[in-house]
């Protein structure tokens, strides 16, 4: 049986290695194909019109710049009376930047590549993770552990090799945002954090770029177009940043995969409308999507604010001010939503590592383990014999801790340990327990994540 297990592990690892090699090769092929098209295009442009993909470098003699191959590829869009060849031609000459290749960016990029945007930029510095796959549908398993930009670019090239894909493998910061955004006609905000939203909006105002902004969390989504046709910017609507406690992350609150997918598709649609100059962009309006109740509401929002500090009548927000503005300080939250904050509320003797806790467990120490995660987290996975009292209910359920301690200790003193997912809420709980007299309470440093990392690698993480 053991050798069977070892064989399976070896085969799995070989498959994994081969898959990685395969996706590498595929990425190289699609990059080379794009290069080749580019070269052919330049040569053809000199000699004949051929099947040059770039609208800017060809003239088929039909007046609209579409090659026969393009006419065939985009025919179903050309057939639309309200879109047609003029809008397609506009689109082919346009450039769109998508900031974030995550849940929103995935479908947005796929559709923007497919529909024939001339140049498509992708900014991200994250890597693909297994827990992204349920919503970030542009990435495939073979790309886990690799840069999202590389993965997304390969997927876009595979769909449409005639679109110029630009990979910006870096986090967007005030130091590089002006330079990157200035190269595009339309900006799509598909990021996942508050400082990023302010930064991108301000940068769009400074550069005069339309911004298609989408957000999704849990089972809800929001969408609007800022800084376009006299409409408001993000700051007109939200001049003061929300408290950090109001900025939930998908990694804490969860998100149903299809919800950002829907908002991302709508972002692609708004970007296409702006780039091709058709229809009415969602300016001065906001779309609110509630997946659970199946409701979409489109509401009228305020116009550009005369008093806006960035785009208002007397505002003088310059490029230099933008570069010097501290967005993380302004919003009190980090520009990268993937790094959860680590609290340090307690002194060392009120804390214990997961390894030490495991030692005490093995030594048969009499104790109570309170898990302060919300109930729906506890139902996913928990340590045996732990007592679930969510932090929000701790105050009301102290009696349960007291009675569990009495039951456990008999004549001896029973210890009290508190655990949570990452080791933040457990510290808050221990702080509170100390205050009201449970002075021996200790938190397990790093929570269940450290348990899984340092004690039991087979323990599921989420």
């Amino acid at each position, binding site marked *: 049986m053991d050798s069977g297990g070892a064989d399976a592990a070896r085969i799995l690892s070989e498959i994994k290695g081969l898959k990685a090699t395969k996706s590498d090769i595929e990425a190289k092929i699609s990059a080379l194909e794009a290069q080749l098209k580019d070269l052919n295009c330049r040569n053809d442009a000199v000699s004949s019109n051929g099947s040059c993909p770039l609208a800017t470098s060809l003239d088929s003699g039909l007046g609209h710049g579409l090659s026969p191959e393009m006419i065939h590829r985009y025919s179903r869009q050309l057939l639309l009376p309200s879109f047609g060849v003029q809008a397609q031609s506009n689109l082919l000459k346009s450039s769109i930047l998508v900031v*974030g290749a*995550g*849940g*929103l*960016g995935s479908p947005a990029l796929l559709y923007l590549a497919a529909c024939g945007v001339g140049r498509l930029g992708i900014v991200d510095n994250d890597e693909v993770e297994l827990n992204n796959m349920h919503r970030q549908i542009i990435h495939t398993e073979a790309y886990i552990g690799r840069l999202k930009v590389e993965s997304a670019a390969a997927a876009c090239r595979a769909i449409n090799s005639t679109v110029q894909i630009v990979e910006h493998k870096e986090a967007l910061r005030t130091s590089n945002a002006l330079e990157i955004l200035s190269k595009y006609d339309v900006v799509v905000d*598909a*990021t*996942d*954090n*508050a400082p990023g*939203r302010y930064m991108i909006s301000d940068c769009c105002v400074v550069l005069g770029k339309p911004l298609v902004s*989408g*957000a*999704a*969390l*849990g089972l*809800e*989504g*929001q969408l609007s177009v800022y800084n376009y046709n006299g409409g408001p910017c993000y700051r007109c*609507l*939200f*001049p*003061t*940043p*929300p*408290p950090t*406690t*109001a*900025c*939930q*992350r*998908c990694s804490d*609150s969860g*998100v149903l995969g299809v919800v*950002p997918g829907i*908002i991302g598709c709508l972002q692609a649609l708004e970007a296409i409308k702006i780039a091709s100059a058709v229809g009415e962009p969602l300016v001065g309006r*906001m779309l*609110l999507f*509630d997946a659970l*109740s199946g409701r979409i*509401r*489109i*509401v*009228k*929002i*305020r116009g550009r604010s005369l008093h806006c500090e960035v785009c208002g009548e007397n505002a003088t927000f310059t490029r230099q001010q933008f570069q010097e503005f501290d967005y993380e300080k302004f919003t009190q939250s980090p520009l990268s*939503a993937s790094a959860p904050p680590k609290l340090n509320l307690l002194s060392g003797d009120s804390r214990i590592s997961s390894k030490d806790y495991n030692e005490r467990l093995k030594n048969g120490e009499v104790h109570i383990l309170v898990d302060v995660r919300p109930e729906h987290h506890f139902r996913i996975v928990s340590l045996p014999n732990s007592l679930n009292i969510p932090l*929000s209910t701790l105050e009301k359920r102290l009696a349960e801790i007291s009675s569990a301690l009495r039951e456990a200790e008999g004549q001896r003193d029973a210890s009290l340990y508190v655990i949570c997912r990452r080791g933040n809420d457990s510290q808050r709980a221990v702080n509170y327990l100390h205050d009201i007299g449970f002075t021996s309470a200790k938190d397990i440093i790093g929570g269940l994540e450290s348990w899984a990392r340092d004690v039991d690698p087979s323990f599921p993480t989420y």
Partner: protein
Amino acid sequence: MQLTVEFGGGLELLCNSVKIHNINIETPKGAQQLAMRDLLVWVQNNLIKERPEMFIKGDTVRPGVLVLVNDCDWELSGQLDTTLEEKDVVVFISTLHGG
């Protein structure tokens, strides 16, 4: 006066996860009309069950909350001074940042 009050973007978590509330509210004594100012106080006292600081800051909603009266930003109707009428729908929605 019958009003519909809705919460979204996570604010419903402050009211036992109930999003839609059909409420009956009296115009304050001596006042001619019910204003959003009055409704905010009523909502805080009657619907918000936890963490009121996630809803109110000072005498208005906290930053990051959009208020919509009949699908229209209350900035366009006078914010706290917006007067309400029978069957109006008031939505409080927290802006989302995730993606």
